[in-house]
């Protein structure tokens, strides 16, 4: 994290205008350098996650069980890559060229969400990614409609609308497996068992709102724990309704304090994934992205007339 030399008085006025007056910050407005830095890093990670999130599902387009599912999955992958385009454009307005962001992503210099590091073993993993992981993304993305950066807030409207379609796609696949043969049902249960902890990780630690830099800077409107609770309230009843057991034996809704109680996930395992080397799936996906990036660089140069970014060997 670099150090910033922001004027404290102006920064205080800036924070007050976004938190108290609900002002949206526009690209040409003055903003503290720390806000620019953190906002860019946040949106860039979001964009990276959309692009990397398309890969676990892309791996299943050819293997999807029916033509209808292949087409629906291909359409969803197209939407996710489209979200990446929209978000890189927003991130670019904060000063980092899109090509540099993509180059950083494929060479592992920037990060993306933990849930896209995992392999998809069976069609049930596609159901879990489409319904539970996308569901987790919808919860956090809906909150982002209230973010303080104007271009981000506006682009999220379109993204959230498309995500609600993905939610239907995911629920449709889930219900087909849950209501299918015993083998399909067991496959789905195993998928949920695999995805439970990554989804608990997805929301992050229970950081108090007043200690969360993302909330301090008006980038993230909802705390990690509020997002996790909102996700559980929406998705756990749906899983139970399908007869799918949740793998955490301590999970229960407490009517008195209006909260879900659950077992704290192993945060060291999360750190090993996002700060370490990811998984074998991460390496394969990044290698595939690097290869495409290098092979297609000449097309990019031809169309844009850009000077190529130096690509690491």
């Amino acid at each position, binding site marked *: 994290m670099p150090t910033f030399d922001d004027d404290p008085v102006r920064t205080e006025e800036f924070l007050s205008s976004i938190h108290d007056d609900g002002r949206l910050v526009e690209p040409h407005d003055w903003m503290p350098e720390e806000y620019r830095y953190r906002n860019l890093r946040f949106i860039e990670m979001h964009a990276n996650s959309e692009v990397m999130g398309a890969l676990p599902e892309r791996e299943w387009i050819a293997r999807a069980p029916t033509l209808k599912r292949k087409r*629906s999955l291909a359409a969803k992958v197209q939407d996710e890559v489209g979200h990446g385009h929209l978000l890189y454009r927003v991130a670019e307005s904060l000063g980092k060229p899109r090509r540099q962001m993509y180059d950083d992503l494929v060479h592992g210099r920037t990060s993306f969400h933990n849930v896209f590091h995992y392999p998809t073993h069976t069609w049930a993993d596609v159901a879990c990614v489409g319904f539970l992981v996308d569901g987790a993304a919808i919860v956090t993305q809906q909150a982002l409609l209230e973010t303080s950066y*104007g271009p981000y807030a506006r682009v999220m*409207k379109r993204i959230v609308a498309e995500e609600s379609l993905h939610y239907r796609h995911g629920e*449709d696949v889930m*219900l087909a497996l849950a209501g299918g043969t015993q083998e399909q049902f067991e496959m789905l249960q195993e998928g949920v068992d695999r995805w439970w902890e990554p989804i608990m990780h997805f929301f992050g630690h229970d950081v108090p709102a007043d200690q969360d830099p993302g909330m301090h800077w008006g980038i993230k409107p909802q705390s990690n724990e509020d997002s996790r609770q909102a996700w559980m309230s929406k998705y756990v009843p749906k899983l139970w*309704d399908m007869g799918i057991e949740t793998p955490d034996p301590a999970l229960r809704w407490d009517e008195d304090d209006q909260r879900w109680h659950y077992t704290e996930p192993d945060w060291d395992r999360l750190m090993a994934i996002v700060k370490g080397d990811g998984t074998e799936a991460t390496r394969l996906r990044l290698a595939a992205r690097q290869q495409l990036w290098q092979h297609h660089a000449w097309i990019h140069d031809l169309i844009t007339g850009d000077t190529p970014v130096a690509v690491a060997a």
Partner: protein
Amino acid sequence: MATFEVLGRRKHSDPLVHAGQVHAADLDAALMLVRETHFRHEEGVEYAVVPSEHLHVLPDPSLLEHDVDMSYRQNHGFTPFGPKRERARAAAEARGRGELRRRPVPGRAGGAAEKDAR
């Protein structure tokens, strides 16, 4: 005189949307005119003008139509969910997993099944 397309933003959180056209001598005159023609009643917080000749219009709108069913790109391609959920519930009961939906969940102390019974 030239024709200009008018784009406006109602609130800061809204996208720029087409609001109409004006005729004006140049960009500055168009900007000034639009304030009186389209934005004098607080219709928006920001607006822009673009020379109409700079718009590249799709020459053949039939390119937006599909020859095959692509309803999976829209919500109605998946709805209604009621019968699908009912089928999954019945399957859960048949597998002896019906108890799961009688656990307490938000808004329903007695679980999902209690709500369905009401």
